[in-house]
Protein backbone atom coordinates (compact mmCIF):
# COMPACT_ATOMS: atom_id res chain seq x y z
CA UNK A 1 0.00 0.00 0.00
CA UNK A 2 1.61 3.24 -1.03
CA UNK A 3 0.59 6.84 -0.60
CA UNK A 4 -0.29 7.41 -4.19
CA UNK A 5 -2.76 4.55 -4.26
CA UNK A 6 -4.24 5.68 -0.99
CA UNK A 7 -4.63 9.21 -2.30
CA UNK A 8 -6.18 7.90 -5.51
CA UNK A 9 -8.77 5.90 -3.63
CA UNK A 10 -9.44 8.40 -0.88
CA UNK A 11 -10.22 11.44 -3.06
CA UNK A 12 -13.40 10.14 -4.75
CA UNK A 13 -14.21 7.97 -1.75
CA UNK A 14 -14.22 10.85 0.70
CA UNK A 15 -16.23 13.02 -1.67
CA UNK A 16 -18.94 10.39 -2.03
CA UNK A 17 -18.97 9.70 1.70
CA UNK A 18 -19.38 13.36 2.58
CA UNK A 19 -21.79 14.37 -0.17
CA UNK A 20 -23.73 11.18 -0.72
CA UNK A 21 -23.73 8.88 2.29
CA UNK A 22 -23.73 11.44 5.08
CA UNK A 23 -26.71 13.34 3.56
CA UNK A 24 -28.71 10.12 3.60
CA UNK A 25 -27.81 9.52 7.22
CA UNK A 26 -29.11 13.03 7.91
CA UNK A 27 -32.36 12.29 6.05
CA UNK A 28 -32.88 9.18 8.19
CA UNK A 29 -32.12 11.12 11.33
CA UNK A 30 -34.54 13.96 10.50
CA UNK A 31 -37.21 11.42 9.52
CA UNK A 32 -37.07 10.31 13.14
CA UNK A 33 -37.26 13.87 14.50
CA UNK A 34 -40.28 16.04 15.20
CA UNK A 35 -41.51 19.17 13.48
CA UNK A 36 -40.79 22.36 15.40
CA UNK A 37 -41.20 26.04 14.76
CA UNK A 38 -37.55 26.97 14.77
CA UNK A 39 -34.59 27.26 12.44
CA UNK A 40 -33.97 24.57 11.23
CA UNK A 41 -37.59 23.45 11.72
CA UNK A 42 -37.12 20.17 13.53
CA UNK A 43 -36.25 18.90 16.96
CA UNK A 44 -34.22 17.46 18.65
CA UNK A 45 -30.96 19.04 17.61
CA UNK A 46 -27.76 17.33 18.52
CA UNK A 47 -26.19 19.40 21.29
CA UNK A 48 -22.57 18.37 21.57
CA UNK A 49 -21.77 20.97 24.20
CA UNK A 50 -23.84 18.99 26.70
CA UNK A 51 -21.47 16.06 26.23
CA UNK A 52 -22.59 12.48 26.65
CA UNK A 53 -25.87 13.48 28.31
CA UNK A 54 -26.74 15.56 25.26
CA UNK A 55 -26.11 12.66 22.91
CA UNK A 56 -28.18 10.36 25.12
CA UNK A 57 -31.16 12.68 25.32
CA UNK A 58 -30.87 13.31 21.57
CA UNK A 59 -31.24 9.65 20.75
CA UNK A 60 -33.95 9.30 23.36
CA UNK A 61 -36.10 11.84 21.55
CA UNK A 62 -35.94 10.16 18.14
CA UNK A 63 -39.01 8.10 17.32
CA UNK A 64 -41.02 6.59 14.47
CA UNK A 65 -43.91 9.05 14.86
CA UNK A 66 -43.60 10.35 11.28
CA UNK A 67 -43.83 6.87 9.87
CA UNK A 68 -46.99 6.13 11.87
CA UNK A 69 -48.32 9.44 10.60
CA UNK A 70 -47.58 8.43 6.99
CA UNK A 71 -49.30 5.10 7.52
CA UNK A 72 -52.38 6.68 9.09
CA UNK A 73 -52.85 9.51 6.60
CA UNK A 74 -54.66 8.37 3.46
CA UNK A 75 -52.94 11.10 1.39
CA UNK A 76 -49.51 9.49 1.57
CA UNK A 77 -50.80 5.97 1.32
CA UNK A 78 -52.73 6.73 -1.86
CA UNK A 79 -49.88 8.84 -3.25
CA UNK A 80 -47.52 5.86 -3.03
CA UNK A 81 -50.11 3.55 -4.57
CA UNK A 82 -50.99 5.93 -7.36
CA UNK A 83 -47.28 6.57 -8.12
CA UNK A 84 -46.73 2.83 -8.41
CA UNK A 85 -49.78 2.51 -10.64
CA UNK A 86 -48.88 5.44 -12.89
CA UNK A 87 -45.25 4.32 -13.18
CA UNK A 88 -46.27 0.73 -13.98
CA UNK A 89 -48.87 1.62 -16.61
CA UNK A 90 -46.59 4.22 -18.19
CA UNK A 91 -43.77 1.66 -18.34
CA UNK A 92 -46.05 -0.80 -20.13
CA UNK A 93 -47.16 1.80 -22.68
CA UNK A 94 -43.54 2.85 -23.23
CA UNK A 95 -42.67 -0.80 -23.89
CA UNK A 96 -45.50 -1.13 -26.41
CA UNK A 97 -44.43 2.06 -28.18
CA UNK A 98 -40.68 1.46 -27.88
CA UNK A 99 -40.45 -2.18 -28.93
CA UNK A 100 -41.59 -1.68 -32.55
CA UNK A 101 -39.22 1.29 -32.87
CA UNK A 102 -36.27 -0.74 -31.54
CA UNK A 103 -37.28 -3.66 -33.77
CA UNK A 104 -37.47 -1.43 -36.83
CA UNK A 105 -34.04 0.05 -35.99
CA UNK A 106 -32.48 -3.39 -35.58
CA UNK A 107 -33.83 -4.44 -38.97
CA UNK A 108 -32.77 -1.35 -40.84
CA UNK A 109 -29.74 -1.32 -43.12
CA UNK A 110 -26.22 -0.61 -41.88
CA UNK A 111 -25.97 2.85 -43.34
CA UNK A 112 -29.20 3.94 -41.63
CA UNK A 113 -28.46 2.63 -38.16
CA UNK A 114 -26.05 5.32 -36.89
CA UNK A 115 -28.49 8.03 -38.00
CA UNK A 116 -31.46 6.33 -36.37
CA UNK A 117 -29.38 5.82 -33.25
CA UNK A 118 -28.51 9.50 -33.14
CA UNK A 119 -32.15 10.44 -33.68
CA UNK A 120 -33.10 8.40 -30.61
CA UNK A 121 -30.30 9.81 -28.46
CA UNK A 122 -30.72 13.45 -29.50
CA UNK A 123 -33.89 14.10 -27.44
CA UNK A 124 -32.08 12.69 -24.43
CA UNK A 125 -29.57 15.56 -24.61
CA UNK A 126 -32.30 18.15 -25.01
CA UNK A 127 -33.67 19.66 -21.86
CA UNK A 128 -36.13 17.40 -20.07
CA UNK A 129 -38.09 20.43 -18.92
CA UNK A 130 -38.50 21.71 -22.48
CA UNK A 131 -39.68 18.34 -23.72
CA UNK A 132 -42.35 18.25 -21.03
CA UNK A 133 -43.25 21.88 -21.69
CA UNK A 134 -43.77 21.13 -25.41
CA UNK A 135 -46.77 18.98 -24.48
CA UNK A 136 -48.60 21.75 -22.64
CA UNK A 137 -49.24 23.55 -25.92
CA UNK A 138 -50.36 20.31 -27.56
CA UNK A 139 -52.65 18.92 -24.92
CA UNK A 140 -54.36 22.02 -23.56
CA UNK A 141 -58.01 22.77 -24.37
CA UNK A 142 -57.04 25.22 -27.12
CA UNK A 143 -54.04 23.08 -28.00
CA UNK A 144 -53.01 21.52 -31.27
CA UNK A 145 -54.45 18.10 -30.58
CA UNK A 146 -57.92 19.47 -29.86
CA UNK A 147 -57.69 21.86 -32.80
CA UNK A 148 -56.75 18.98 -35.09
CA UNK A 149 -59.44 16.66 -33.77
CA UNK A 150 -62.11 19.34 -34.08
CA UNK A 151 -60.77 20.30 -37.49
CA UNK A 152 -61.38 16.85 -38.88
CA UNK A 153 -64.74 16.77 -37.14
CA UNK A 154 -63.99 13.89 -34.80
CA UNK A 155 -65.12 15.80 -31.71
CA UNK A 156 -67.35 18.82 -31.16
CA UNK A 157 -65.97 20.22 -27.97
CA UNK A 158 -62.36 20.11 -26.75
CA UNK A 159 -61.28 17.12 -24.71
CA UNK A 160 -59.76 17.86 -21.33
CA UNK A 161 -56.40 16.10 -21.40
CA UNK A 162 -54.00 18.55 -19.81
CA UNK A 163 -54.03 18.41 -16.00
CA UNK A 164 -55.24 14.82 -15.96
CA UNK A 165 -53.43 11.53 -15.47
CA UNK A 166 -53.58 10.90 -19.23
CA UNK A 167 -51.28 13.87 -19.79
CA UNK A 168 -48.91 12.42 -17.17
CA UNK A 169 -48.81 9.12 -19.06
CA UNK A 170 -48.10 10.93 -22.31
CA UNK A 171 -45.32 12.91 -20.63
CA UNK A 172 -43.64 9.85 -19.12
CA UNK A 173 -43.87 7.80 -22.32
CA UNK A 174 -42.49 10.69 -24.34
CA UNK A 175 -39.57 11.63 -22.12
CA UNK A 176 -38.48 8.10 -21.23
CA UNK A 177 -38.91 6.49 -24.66
CA UNK A 178 -35.15 6.56 -25.48
CA UNK A 179 -34.42 4.64 -22.25
CA UNK A 180 -36.71 1.87 -23.47
CA UNK A 181 -35.63 1.83 -27.11
CA UNK A 182 -31.85 1.72 -26.58
CA UNK A 183 -31.52 -1.43 -24.39
CA UNK A 184 -34.08 -3.33 -26.50
CA UNK A 185 -32.29 -2.27 -29.66
CA UNK A 186 -28.93 -3.46 -28.35
CA UNK A 187 -30.47 -6.84 -27.43
CA UNK A 188 -32.15 -7.19 -30.83
CA UNK A 189 -29.03 -6.12 -32.69
CA UNK A 190 -27.03 -8.99 -31.19
CA UNK A 191 -29.74 -11.50 -32.06
CA UNK A 192 -28.60 -14.19 -34.47
CA UNK A 193 -30.85 -14.04 -37.54
CA UNK A 194 -30.29 -17.68 -38.38
CA UNK A 195 -32.27 -18.66 -35.29
CA UNK A 196 -35.37 -17.03 -36.74
CA UNK A 197 -34.74 -18.65 -40.11
CA UNK A 198 -34.37 -21.99 -38.35
CA UNK A 199 -37.68 -21.48 -36.56
CA UNK A 200 -39.38 -20.60 -39.84
CA UNK A 201 -37.79 -23.60 -41.59
CA UNK A 202 -39.08 -25.82 -38.83
CA UNK A 203 -42.62 -24.72 -39.52
CA UNK A 204 -43.16 -21.59 -37.41
CA UNK A 205 -45.17 -18.80 -38.95
CA UNK A 206 -43.48 -15.39 -38.81
CA UNK A 207 -45.64 -14.36 -35.89
CA UNK A 208 -44.83 -17.57 -34.03
CA UNK A 209 -41.11 -17.15 -34.72
CA UNK A 210 -41.32 -13.62 -33.38
CA UNK A 211 -43.18 -14.73 -30.27
CA UNK A 212 -41.12 -17.86 -29.58
CA UNK A 213 -37.64 -16.68 -30.60
CA UNK A 214 -37.28 -12.91 -30.91
CA UNK A 215 -39.19 -11.90 -27.77
CA UNK A 216 -37.47 -14.39 -25.40
CA UNK A 217 -34.03 -13.50 -26.76
CA UNK A 218 -34.66 -9.78 -26.33
CA UNK A 219 -35.92 -10.28 -22.77
CA UNK A 220 -32.79 -8.84 -21.07
CA UNK A 221 -33.25 -5.66 -23.10
CA UNK A 222 -36.94 -5.51 -22.26
CA UNK A 223 -36.25 -5.95 -18.55
CA UNK A 224 -33.48 -3.34 -18.55
CA UNK A 225 -35.66 -0.88 -20.46
CA UNK A 226 -38.62 -1.38 -18.13
CA UNK A 227 -36.53 -0.72 -15.04
CA UNK A 228 -34.88 2.32 -16.63
CA UNK A 229 -38.35 3.78 -17.17
CA UNK A 230 -40.10 2.54 -14.04
CA UNK A 231 -37.49 3.59 -11.46
CA UNK A 232 -37.21 7.27 -12.37
CA UNK A 233 -40.91 7.53 -13.26
CA UNK A 234 -41.84 6.47 -9.73
CA UNK A 235 -40.19 9.49 -8.12
CA UNK A 236 -40.99 11.88 -10.98
CA UNK A 237 -41.68 15.47 -10.03
CA UNK A 238 -41.59 17.65 -13.16
CA UNK A 239 -44.13 15.70 -15.24
CA UNK A 240 -46.93 15.46 -12.66
CA UNK A 241 -46.50 19.08 -11.61
CA UNK A 242 -46.56 20.48 -15.16
CA UNK A 243 -48.91 18.08 -16.96
CA UNK A 244 -50.87 16.55 -14.10
CA UNK A 245 -53.77 18.13 -12.31
CA UNK A 246 -54.57 18.69 -8.68
CA UNK A 247 -55.96 15.16 -8.52
CA UNK A 248 -52.72 13.64 -9.82
CA UNK A 249 -51.05 12.19 -6.78
CA UNK A 250 -47.40 11.32 -7.21
CA UNK A 251 -45.01 10.89 -4.37
CA UNK A 252 -42.23 13.04 -5.84
CA UNK A 253 -44.62 15.96 -6.02
CA UNK A 254 -45.95 15.30 -2.50
CA UNK A 255 -42.39 15.29 -1.14
CA UNK A 256 -41.50 18.51 -2.93
CA UNK A 257 -44.61 20.29 -1.66
CA UNK A 258 -44.28 18.89 1.85
CA UNK A 259 -40.82 20.37 1.96
CA UNK A 260 -41.27 23.70 0.21
CA UNK A 261 -44.91 24.61 0.88
CA UNK A 262 -45.58 23.03 4.26
CA UNK A 263 -41.98 23.27 5.42
CA UNK A 264 -42.45 20.03 7.30
CA UNK A 265 -38.95 18.64 6.98
CA UNK A 266 -39.36 15.58 9.21
CA UNK A 267 -42.41 14.36 7.26
CA UNK A 268 -40.71 15.10 3.92
CA UNK A 269 -37.70 13.06 5.10
CA UNK A 270 -39.94 10.20 6.18
CA UNK A 271 -41.64 10.28 2.75
CA UNK A 272 -38.19 10.06 1.15
CA UNK A 273 -37.14 7.13 3.36
CA UNK A 274 -40.27 5.14 2.48
CA UNK A 275 -39.83 5.91 -1.23
CA UNK A 276 -36.26 4.66 -0.96
CA UNK A 277 -37.44 1.44 0.67
CA UNK A 278 -39.97 0.91 -2.13
CA UNK A 279 -37.29 1.53 -4.75
CA UNK A 280 -34.73 -0.85 -3.27
CA UNK A 281 -36.54 -3.93 -4.64
CA UNK A 282 -36.66 -2.83 -8.31
CA UNK A 283 -33.10 -1.47 -8.05
CA UNK A 284 -31.73 -4.79 -6.77
CA UNK A 285 -33.65 -6.68 -9.47
CA UNK A 286 -32.25 -4.31 -12.08
CA UNK A 287 -28.66 -4.79 -10.85
CA UNK A 288 -29.13 -8.57 -10.98
CA UNK A 289 -30.37 -8.36 -14.56
CA UNK A 290 -27.34 -6.25 -15.51
CA UNK A 291 -24.99 -8.65 -13.74
CA UNK A 292 -26.48 -11.62 -15.58
CA UNK A 293 -26.11 -9.75 -18.86
CA UNK A 294 -22.47 -9.00 -18.16
CA UNK A 295 -21.74 -12.61 -17.26
CA UNK A 296 -23.54 -13.82 -20.38
CA UNK A 297 -21.50 -11.38 -22.45
CA UNK A 298 -18.17 -12.75 -21.22
Amino acid at each position, binding site marked *: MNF*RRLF*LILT*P*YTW*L*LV*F*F*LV*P*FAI*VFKIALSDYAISI*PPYTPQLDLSAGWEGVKSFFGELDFENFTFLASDALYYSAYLSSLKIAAIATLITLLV*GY*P*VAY*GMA*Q*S*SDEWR*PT*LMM*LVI*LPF*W*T*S*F*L*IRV*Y*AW*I*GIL*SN*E*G*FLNQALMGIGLIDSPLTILNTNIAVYVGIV*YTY*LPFMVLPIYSA*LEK*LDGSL*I*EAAEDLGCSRAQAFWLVTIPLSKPGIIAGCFLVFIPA*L*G*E*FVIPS*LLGGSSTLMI*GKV*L*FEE*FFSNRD*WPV*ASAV*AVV*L*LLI*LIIPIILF*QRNEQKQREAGL
Partner: protein
Amino acid sequence: MNRKFTWFNATSLTLGFVFLYLPMIILVIFSFNSSKLVTVWAGFSTKWYGELLQNDAFLNAAWVTLKVAVLSSTLATILGTLAAYVMVRAGRFRGRTLFSGMIYAPLVMPEVITGLAMLLLFIAIGLDRGVTTIVLAHTTFTMCYVSVVVSSRLVTFDQSLEEAALDLGCTPFDAFKSVTLPIIAPAVISGWLLAFTLSLDDLVIASFAAGPSSTTLPMKIFSSVRLGVSPEINALSTLMISIVTVGVITASLISKRSIAKQRADEQAAVRT
Protein backbone atom coordinates in the same frame (compact mmCIF):
# COMPACT_ATOMS: atom_id res chain seq x y z
CA MET B 1 -30.64 -10.00 -36.99
CA ASN B 2 -32.21 -10.46 -40.42
CA ARG B 3 -32.45 -7.30 -42.46
CA LYS B 4 -35.80 -7.11 -44.02
CA PHE B 5 -37.52 -4.04 -45.22
CA THR B 6 -41.16 -4.38 -44.29
CA TRP B 7 -43.94 -1.86 -44.26
CA PHE B 8 -44.49 -2.67 -40.62
CA ASN B 9 -40.94 -1.62 -39.70
CA ALA B 10 -41.09 1.48 -41.85
CA THR B 11 -44.39 2.52 -40.27
CA SER B 12 -43.28 1.91 -36.70
CA LEU B 13 -40.06 3.84 -37.24
CA THR B 14 -41.90 6.72 -38.86
CA LEU B 15 -44.56 6.90 -36.18
CA GLY B 16 -41.95 6.56 -33.43
CA PHE B 17 -39.83 9.41 -34.75
CA VAL B 18 -42.84 11.61 -35.50
CA PHE B 19 -43.89 11.11 -31.88
CA LEU B 20 -40.37 12.01 -30.67
CA TYR B 21 -39.88 15.04 -32.87
CA LEU B 22 -43.27 16.57 -33.66
CA PRO B 23 -43.74 18.24 -30.24
CA MET B 24 -40.34 19.90 -30.52
CA ILE B 25 -40.96 20.98 -34.11
CA ILE B 26 -44.25 22.60 -33.11
CA LEU B 27 -42.45 24.33 -30.25
CA VAL B 28 -39.80 25.72 -32.59
CA ILE B 29 -42.33 26.87 -35.21
CA PHE B 30 -44.42 28.73 -32.68
CA SER B 31 -41.41 30.57 -31.27
CA PHE B 32 -41.62 32.57 -34.51
CA ASN B 33 -45.29 33.35 -34.07
CA SER B 34 -46.06 37.04 -33.77
CA SER B 35 -49.13 36.50 -31.58
CA LYS B 36 -48.93 36.25 -27.83
CA LEU B 37 -51.27 33.27 -28.10
CA VAL B 38 -49.01 30.31 -28.52
CA THR B 39 -51.48 28.08 -30.29
CA VAL B 40 -52.81 30.45 -32.94
CA TRP B 41 -50.57 31.35 -35.86
CA ALA B 42 -50.58 35.06 -36.63
CA GLY B 43 -47.59 35.56 -38.86
CA PHE B 44 -43.80 35.27 -38.73
CA SER B 45 -41.85 37.34 -36.26
CA THR B 46 -38.64 37.15 -34.28
CA LYS B 47 -39.76 39.62 -31.66
CA TRP B 48 -39.82 37.04 -28.84
CA TYR B 49 -36.10 36.47 -29.31
CA GLY B 50 -35.57 40.20 -28.94
CA GLU B 51 -37.65 40.32 -25.78
CA LEU B 52 -35.81 37.31 -24.43
CA LEU B 53 -32.47 39.02 -24.89
CA GLN B 54 -33.74 42.02 -22.94
CA ASN B 55 -35.08 39.96 -20.10
CA ASP B 56 -32.48 40.38 -17.39
CA ALA B 57 -33.94 37.71 -15.15
CA PHE B 58 -33.47 35.08 -17.85
CA LEU B 59 -30.00 36.32 -18.78
CA ASN B 60 -28.88 36.25 -15.14
CA ALA B 61 -30.30 32.79 -14.67
CA ALA B 62 -28.57 31.62 -17.85
CA TRP B 63 -25.28 32.99 -16.57
CA VAL B 64 -25.65 31.25 -13.20
CA THR B 65 -26.56 28.00 -14.96
CA LEU B 66 -23.57 28.19 -17.27
CA LYS B 67 -21.17 28.92 -14.39
CA VAL B 68 -22.57 26.02 -12.38
CA ALA B 69 -22.45 23.66 -15.35
CA VAL B 70 -18.83 24.46 -16.30
CA LEU B 71 -17.54 24.24 -12.72
CA SER B 72 -19.49 21.16 -11.70
CA SER B 73 -18.87 19.18 -14.87
CA THR B 74 -15.14 19.88 -14.68
CA LEU B 75 -14.96 18.82 -11.04
CA ALA B 76 -17.18 15.84 -11.79
CA THR B 77 -14.94 14.77 -14.66
CA ILE B 78 -11.84 14.81 -12.44
CA LEU B 79 -13.53 12.97 -9.59
CA GLY B 80 -15.44 10.61 -11.86
CA THR B 81 -12.33 9.65 -13.82
CA LEU B 82 -10.47 9.01 -10.56
CA ALA B 83 -13.39 6.93 -9.32
CA ALA B 84 -13.48 4.93 -12.55
CA TYR B 85 -9.73 4.34 -12.31
CA VAL B 86 -10.10 3.15 -8.73
CA MET B 87 -12.99 0.84 -9.66
CA VAL B 88 -11.21 -0.75 -12.61
CA ARG B 89 -7.53 -0.66 -11.64
CA ALA B 90 -7.07 -0.38 -7.88
CA GLY B 91 -7.89 -4.03 -7.23
CA ARG B 92 -9.36 -5.02 -3.90
CA PHE B 93 -9.42 -2.64 -1.00
CA ARG B 94 -11.41 -2.29 2.13
CA GLY B 95 -14.84 -0.79 1.50
CA ARG B 96 -14.85 -1.45 -2.25
CA THR B 97 -18.45 -2.69 -2.19
CA LEU B 98 -19.61 0.47 -0.46
CA PHE B 99 -17.64 2.51 -2.98
CA SER B 100 -19.23 0.88 -6.01
CA GLY B 101 -22.62 1.16 -4.35
CA MET B 102 -22.11 4.89 -3.86
CA ILE B 103 -21.12 5.27 -7.51
CA TYR B 104 -24.14 3.46 -8.92
CA ALA B 105 -26.78 4.59 -6.43
CA PRO B 106 -27.07 8.22 -7.60
CA LEU B 107 -27.83 6.99 -11.13
CA VAL B 108 -31.12 5.48 -10.01
CA MET B 109 -31.89 7.75 -7.08
CA PRO B 110 -35.00 9.89 -7.55
CA GLU B 111 -33.93 13.51 -7.86
CA VAL B 112 -36.24 14.65 -5.10
CA ILE B 113 -34.43 12.40 -2.63
CA THR B 114 -30.94 13.42 -3.73
CA GLY B 115 -31.96 17.06 -3.60
CA LEU B 116 -33.52 16.78 -0.17
CA ALA B 117 -30.51 14.91 1.21
CA MET B 118 -28.10 17.49 -0.18
CA LEU B 119 -30.03 20.41 1.23
CA LEU B 120 -30.24 18.86 4.67
CA LEU B 121 -26.47 18.33 4.61
CA PHE B 122 -25.82 21.95 3.65
CA ILE B 123 -28.03 23.15 6.45
CA ALA B 124 -26.47 20.75 8.95
CA ILE B 125 -22.97 22.02 8.20
CA GLY B 126 -24.16 25.61 8.00
CA LEU B 127 -23.16 26.27 4.39
CA ASP B 128 -24.97 29.25 2.86
CA ARG B 129 -26.97 28.22 -0.17
CA GLY B 130 -25.90 29.68 -3.50
CA VAL B 131 -23.80 28.86 -6.51
CA THR B 132 -21.32 26.86 -4.39
CA THR B 133 -23.94 24.50 -3.03
CA ILE B 134 -25.46 23.89 -6.48
CA VAL B 135 -21.97 23.12 -7.81
CA LEU B 136 -21.33 20.67 -4.96
CA ALA B 137 -24.68 18.94 -5.49
CA HIS B 138 -24.30 18.73 -9.26
CA THR B 139 -20.72 17.49 -9.01
CA THR B 140 -21.83 14.67 -6.75
CA PHE B 141 -24.61 13.33 -8.93
CA THR B 142 -22.91 13.88 -12.28
CA MET B 143 -19.53 12.37 -11.28
CA CYS B 144 -21.26 9.01 -11.13
CA TYR B 145 -22.32 9.28 -14.77
CA VAL B 146 -18.76 10.29 -15.72
CA SER B 147 -17.30 7.33 -13.88
CA VAL B 148 -19.68 4.89 -15.61
CA VAL B 149 -18.73 6.27 -19.04
CA VAL B 150 -14.99 6.31 -18.31
CA SER B 151 -14.87 2.90 -16.65
CA SER B 152 -16.52 1.26 -19.63
CA ARG B 153 -13.62 2.56 -21.72
CA LEU B 154 -11.00 1.60 -19.12
CA VAL B 155 -12.31 -1.97 -19.01
CA THR B 156 -11.91 -2.49 -22.73
CA PHE B 157 -8.45 -1.10 -23.30
CA ASP B 158 -5.31 -3.19 -23.30
CA GLN B 159 -3.62 -2.92 -19.92
CA SER B 160 -0.34 -4.23 -21.27
CA LEU B 161 0.23 -0.83 -22.90
CA GLU B 162 0.40 0.72 -19.45
CA GLU B 163 2.65 -2.06 -18.19
CA ALA B 164 4.94 -1.58 -21.16
CA ALA B 165 5.27 2.12 -20.35
CA LEU B 166 6.12 1.26 -16.74
CA ASP B 167 8.65 -1.34 -17.84
CA LEU B 168 10.28 1.19 -20.12
CA GLY B 169 10.92 3.46 -17.18
CA CYS B 170 7.86 5.69 -16.92
CA THR B 171 6.72 6.74 -13.48
CA PRO B 172 3.10 5.69 -12.84
CA PHE B 173 2.03 9.29 -13.26
CA ASP B 174 3.87 9.61 -16.60
CA ALA B 175 2.36 6.33 -17.75
CA PHE B 176 -1.08 7.60 -16.87
CA LYS B 177 -0.47 10.95 -18.54
CA SER B 178 1.10 9.73 -21.76
CA VAL B 179 -0.54 6.33 -22.25
CA THR B 180 -3.78 5.93 -20.33
CA LEU B 181 -5.16 9.45 -20.61
CA PRO B 182 -4.87 9.76 -24.41
CA ILE B 183 -6.59 6.40 -24.81
CA ILE B 184 -9.48 7.18 -22.49
CA ALA B 185 -9.69 10.83 -23.62
CA PRO B 186 -12.78 10.36 -25.84
CA ALA B 187 -14.61 8.80 -22.90
CA VAL B 188 -13.45 11.57 -20.57
CA ILE B 189 -14.68 14.18 -23.02
CA SER B 190 -18.05 12.53 -23.49
CA GLY B 191 -18.25 12.18 -19.70
CA TRP B 192 -17.67 15.90 -19.36
CA LEU B 193 -20.33 16.64 -21.98
CA LEU B 194 -22.79 14.36 -20.25
CA ALA B 195 -22.11 15.99 -16.88
CA PHE B 196 -22.40 19.43 -18.44
CA THR B 197 -25.78 18.66 -20.05
CA LEU B 198 -27.14 17.01 -16.91
CA SER B 199 -26.15 20.06 -14.91
CA LEU B 200 -27.68 22.49 -17.44
CA ASP B 201 -30.85 20.47 -17.42
CA ASP B 202 -31.37 19.84 -13.75
CA LEU B 203 -34.33 21.45 -12.05
CA VAL B 204 -35.10 19.42 -8.95
CA ILE B 205 -31.68 19.13 -7.32
CA ALA B 206 -30.91 22.77 -8.10
CA SER B 207 -34.21 23.88 -6.53
CA PHE B 208 -33.19 22.22 -3.29
CA ALA B 209 -29.57 23.38 -3.34
CA ALA B 210 -30.11 26.95 -4.57
CA GLY B 211 -30.40 29.97 -2.36
CA PRO B 212 -32.68 32.94 -2.98
CA SER B 213 -30.06 34.80 -5.03
CA SER B 214 -29.01 31.94 -7.27
CA THR B 215 -31.82 30.99 -9.62
CA THR B 216 -30.82 28.70 -12.45
CA LEU B 217 -32.38 28.74 -15.90
CA PRO B 218 -34.45 25.56 -15.44
CA MET B 219 -35.82 27.00 -12.18
CA LYS B 220 -36.72 30.20 -13.96
CA ILE B 221 -38.34 28.30 -16.85
CA PHE B 222 -40.25 26.09 -14.44
CA SER B 223 -41.70 28.97 -12.49
CA SER B 224 -42.85 30.80 -15.61
CA VAL B 225 -44.15 27.66 -17.32
CA ARG B 226 -46.34 26.94 -14.31
CA LEU B 227 -48.28 30.06 -15.26
CA GLY B 228 -48.86 28.70 -18.76
CA VAL B 229 -47.31 28.64 -22.20
CA SER B 230 -45.46 31.75 -23.29
CA PRO B 231 -43.79 32.58 -26.61
CA GLU B 232 -40.66 33.76 -24.80
CA ILE B 233 -40.17 30.30 -23.35
CA ASN B 234 -40.66 28.88 -26.84
CA ALA B 235 -37.91 31.15 -28.11
CA LEU B 236 -35.62 30.14 -25.28
CA SER B 237 -36.39 26.46 -25.88
CA THR B 238 -35.62 26.86 -29.57
CA LEU B 239 -32.24 28.38 -28.75
CA MET B 240 -31.44 25.53 -26.36
CA ILE B 241 -32.61 22.85 -28.80
CA SER B 242 -30.48 24.30 -31.60
CA ILE B 243 -27.37 24.49 -29.41
CA VAL B 244 -27.82 20.87 -28.34
CA THR B 245 -28.50 19.68 -31.89
CA VAL B 246 -25.41 21.37 -33.28
CA GLY B 247 -23.37 20.06 -30.34
CA VAL B 248 -24.52 16.47 -30.65
CA ILE B 249 -24.05 16.35 -34.41
CA THR B 250 -20.56 17.88 -34.15
CA ALA B 251 -19.60 15.50 -31.35
CA SER B 252 -20.79 12.48 -33.28
CA LEU B 253 -18.87 13.56 -36.39
CA ILE B 254 -15.72 14.11 -34.33
CA SER B 255 -16.03 10.77 -32.58
CA LYS B 256 -16.68 9.01 -35.88
CA ARG B 257 -13.49 10.53 -37.27
CA SER B 258 -11.43 9.74 -34.17
CA ILE B 259 -12.62 6.13 -34.17
CA ALA B 260 -11.66 5.82 -37.83
CA LYS B 261 -8.26 7.36 -37.09
CA GLN B 262 -7.72 5.06 -34.13
CA ARG B 263 -8.52 2.02 -36.26
CA ALA B 264 -6.11 3.20 -38.94
CA ASP B 265 -3.39 3.76 -36.30
CA GLU B 266 -3.94 0.35 -34.80
CA GLN B 267 -3.74 -1.29 -38.20
CA ALA B 268 -0.59 0.65 -39.02
CA ALA B 269 0.91 -0.45 -35.71
CA VAL B 270 0.08 -4.07 -36.45
CA ARG B 271 1.70 -3.88 -39.88
CA THR B 272 5.01 -2.38 -38.75
